């Protein structure tokens, strides 16, 4: 998990639609990160609610909050209450399920299976308290980021030199990497790479990356936490 100092705005904030920082505001942020990882507004979303999200989520508006995030809303958007209707109007199919993600999963967890066009991603995230969230897996790869930094997510063939090329692009655009992580299933297979940066990642950098044949897809994940 990305460690950083407690900010004044972790304590006085977030500005949010109630009633619960973890079950409502955190859920909005998880939906929003899911949307960013998919790279588009989902046409179809299967939301698997785990633990406390499944048990007491409805009364806290967790369902509406997750969908609001998938629609791109922030934690203080007054339309969160009506998000289920807005999703329907926008042609987003939403299916809720109860899931068991195992004992190690955080009690406030969701597994989002999101699809738009020919893109599909599976994202597991947790609302870890006070509106803070953590994405814990993407497409089955354990990975951790919190939306507190701008991030670049790259799914690519596991081959020598990929990090060199990517960090070279960061140098070209004078971007400083705050944190980075690489995960792979097996040698020579698919690897997932995450880079968190201090400044905004230009779209041209993402486009340049996607021009490499060994890059399956790359996504800029904007910072969602003030």
């Amino acid at each position: 998990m990305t460690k950083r100092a407690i900010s004044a705005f972790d304590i006085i904030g977030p500005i949010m639609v109630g009633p619960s920082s973890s079950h409502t505001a955190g859920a909005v942020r998880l939906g929003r990160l899911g949307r960013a990882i998919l790279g588009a507004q989902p046409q179809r979303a299967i939301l698997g609610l785990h633990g406390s999200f499944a048990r007491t989520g409805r009364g806290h508006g967790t369902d509406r909050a997750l969908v609001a995030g998938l629609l791109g809303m922030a934690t203080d958007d007054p339309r969160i209450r009506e998000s289920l209707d807005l999703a329907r109007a926008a042609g987003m199919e939403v299916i809720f399920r109860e899931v068991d993600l195992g004992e190690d999963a955080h009690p406030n967890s969701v597994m989002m299976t999101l699809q738009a066009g020919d893109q599909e991603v599976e994202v597991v995230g947790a609302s870890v308290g006070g509106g803070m969230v953590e994405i814990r897996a993407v497409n089955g790869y354990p990975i951790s980021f919190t939306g507190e930094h701008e991030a670049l997510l790259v799914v690519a063939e596991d081959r020598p030199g990929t990090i060199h090329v990517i960090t070279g692009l960061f140098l070209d655009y004078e971007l400083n990497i705050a944190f980075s992580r690489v995960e792979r299933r097996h040698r020579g297979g698919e690897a997932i790479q995450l880079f968190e940066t201090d400044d905004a990642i230009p779209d041209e950098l993402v486009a340049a990356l996607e021009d490499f044949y060994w890059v399956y897809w790359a996504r800029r994940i904007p910072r969602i936490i003030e």
Partner: protein
Amino acid sequence: MFESLAEMLSLAEAENQPLHAIVIAREAETTGRSREEVWAAMARRLQVMRQSAEEGLSRPVRSLSGMTGGDAYRLWQWLAAGHEPVTGPILSRAIARAMAVNEVNAGMGCIVATPTAGSAGILPGVLLTLQEAYGFSDDDLVNALFTASGVGAVIARRASIAGAAGGCQAETGSAAAMAAAAGVELLGGSPHQSAHAVAITLKNMLGLVCDPVAGLVEVPCIKRNAAGAAQCFIAIDLALAGVKSVIPPDEVIDAMGRIGRRMDPRFKETAEGGLAATPTGRRLARMIWSHSEDQRDRKPEGQRDAASTNAPTTE
């Protein structure tokens, strides 16, 4: 941000600055943002706090579950009708504002979590009422919020600000302690007096459990926000009069953290103990959740039906 209140105090002393100034400087330094940016972000939060308090007093706001609501408005109207509250003109209005914000929260309205949504009424209740009573400027209140955030950061660092981790003492206790430090500073007290107000508030709220009926942020949370405002005012008056906490503030915070860690999980937001486990609490929970189960069955089905006309389904 800071490891301890002692660190905050020694910095404030060394630089001969009020607490809010060292918090603003530290925030700008650790985030790399300008002081102006940091200031503007906090000023925006004050505006949202004010809006939420005004909304909850302007009409009876009902919660999403229908279990609570309208009590802040009831109290406000009772005061407006000329009744003389035993809590006096200032505390009674702080109580009304604190409850108003929490009712807006329970109604899925917009609030500022301070430090959490469940305890979001205390700081606006205390600060907006002090402003009304003593004529402080908005800038004074923004400063006060920085002082409060510094105290909250120390509590989060050493103990907890989450009901699930430390019970209600960690939520409304922390909020009241933060508001007490801010209130003492607003009213001309020294940084040391602010720290003692933190200690006195927290000491008086140690052990408070988090036992929300049906797991919702309503019962007893809304009235606990009123209680937090009252505890805060007690500590402000004591601290300004020069009363000190025998146990040093950081040690009180540590004690709160230890009590929270050892607290039975039934009393930490799980809705399995205390008021949640009373016959009435359980009955309300059954009513609310059976209604909600009906909705759960309906909504996804409705969505699926609507979607099946224009999208393939792999269900």
